[in-house]
């Protein structure tokens, strides 16, 4: 959904910077005495997919939850479309690693649940939900329950639920890590289509280097203890070569190698 042009956006255009949907500024997060994030700043360009990549314990999920408004930073702030984040809001939708579906509700009600919480009338929200169930390829499963679906199908439900509320920003917390390898590849291809067709900003947490390079416009590499952004990589050449050519593109392979070289010393 196109945002109306505001004066602020015009100014940014003059400065020739990419417009940012989300910016995190000087985020520090401390749990008791452990510093999870220290003074982390990162911008997320509008309409693009930025992935947060790093070894386990590098605070990437913490950062995502701070952006979602589910966690409060110890200091620093997050802005979404120029507004400071104080809690969860309708401008962001979350896709969970373990799907987080209501086990007692049908696929239809699960997908419509975000709208149900926003007091959208039943017939209207079910109409919207049916559209997104079709979009993610689950037509015919509206009446099924989550326990009757495979892991991959459950995550499609989670994705449809996040799309149904039509937020500007989609926050995805290792969304494909709990599904099998083949399903994951299909998901990654579908995600590229989604980025092109839905004008949304994606923030994608993953621990898979290949996945991050494959789906991202921008890869932010986080290093742990305390975590900070060590590098931002923007793949340039293979983005528009088609889903099946990316994995053998020289730049793709180079970037994967380069990231592995910088991360390997952090892996026990």
């Amino acid at each position, binding site marked *: 959904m196109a945002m109306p042009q505001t004066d602020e956006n015009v100014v940014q255009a003059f400065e020739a910077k990419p417009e940012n949907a989300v910016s995190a500024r000087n985020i520090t997060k401390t749990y008791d005495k452990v510093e999870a994030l220290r003074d982390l700043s990162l911008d997320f360009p509008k309409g693009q997919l930025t992935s947060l990549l790093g070894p386990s314990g590098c605070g990437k999920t913490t950062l995502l*939850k701070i952006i*979602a*408004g*589910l966690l409060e930073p110890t200091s620093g702030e997050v802005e979404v479309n120029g507004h400071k984040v104080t809690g*969860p*809001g*309708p401008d*962001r*939708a*979350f896709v*969970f*690693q*373990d799907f*987080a579906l*209501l*086990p*007692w509700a049908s696929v239809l009600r699960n997908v419509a*649940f*975000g709208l*149900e*919480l*926003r007091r959208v009338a039943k017939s209207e929200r079910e109409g919207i939900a049916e559209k997104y169930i079709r979009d993610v390829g689950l037509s015919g499963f509206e009446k099924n*329950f*989550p*326990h009757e679906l495979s892991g991959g199908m459950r995550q499609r439900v989670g994705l449809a*639920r996040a799309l149904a*509320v039509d937020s500007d920003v989609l926050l995805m917390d290792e969304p494909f890590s709990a599904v099998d390898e083949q399903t994951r590849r299909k998901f990654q291809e579908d995600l590229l289509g989604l980025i092109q067709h839905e004008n949304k900003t994606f923030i994608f947490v993953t621990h898979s280097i290949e996945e991050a390079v494959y789906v991202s416009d921008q890869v932010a590499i986080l290093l742990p203890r305390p975590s900070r952004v060590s590098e931002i990589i923007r793949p340039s050449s293979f983005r528009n070569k088609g889903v099946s050519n990316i994995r053998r593109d020289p730049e793709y392979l180079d970037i994967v190698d380069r990231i592995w070289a910088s991360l390997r010393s952090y892996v026990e």
Partner: protein
Amino acid sequence: MTVFGVRLPGMSSLILWGLLWELVGRSGFSFFVPPLSEVVTTLFAVIGTPAFLNALGQTAYAFFMGVLAAIVIGIPVGIMMGKNRLLDELLLPWVNIFLSAPLTALVPVLMVLFGFGMRAIIITTTLFAIWIIILNARAGVMQINRSLIDMARSFGATPLDAFFKVYCWAALPEILGGVRIGIIRAVKGVIIGQLLISIVGFGALFELYSNNFMMGHFWAVLIVLFAMAFTISELLAHLERRVSYYAAKR
């Protein structure tokens, strides 16, 4: 169970125990154990009498009011305890004490506080049932998948929405389990109340029959009571099984 290739229906073993009872009764082993056949005959004779129906009505009333109070108070309190750390710290010791306390010893205190009537009996019933209902609702809420709560919050659930649309349902298998055990304890509570506080309902019948050595009548009423408690408990177990499909996947 299968015996000699024939599948036996559930609870067939009761027939065997019934036979044993009959034999012991006929052997004249004890005056207190009349043959089962005699008890069953008495049972059908007693069931239609005004005295029995009156006792049934009074007992059922006290039982249902007591259980209703235990459920209506117990479930929300348990859910709140599971959600709120402070409330949990404040109430949990008391819940645990009352769960294991010999509540029968408290009945005289209740009589002083609430009089000798129906009210005290209902409160006794509630006191027998409520603690396990609270504990189970609490346990149900505490094991809710963290990301389900994050999900509700991130999609903008108000606290009330989260309570009715997520917490209640996610804890439902445990809540039903608690209600089932609570109801079994409530049967105990209502009879103890009727025996100790005021001699009404089934309590009065037990008192009457045992004092007059009408053992056939005594056992007949006891069987009716057991059967009722068992039926209610099975009904709830059936409900529990219907929601158990998601108990493992929250």
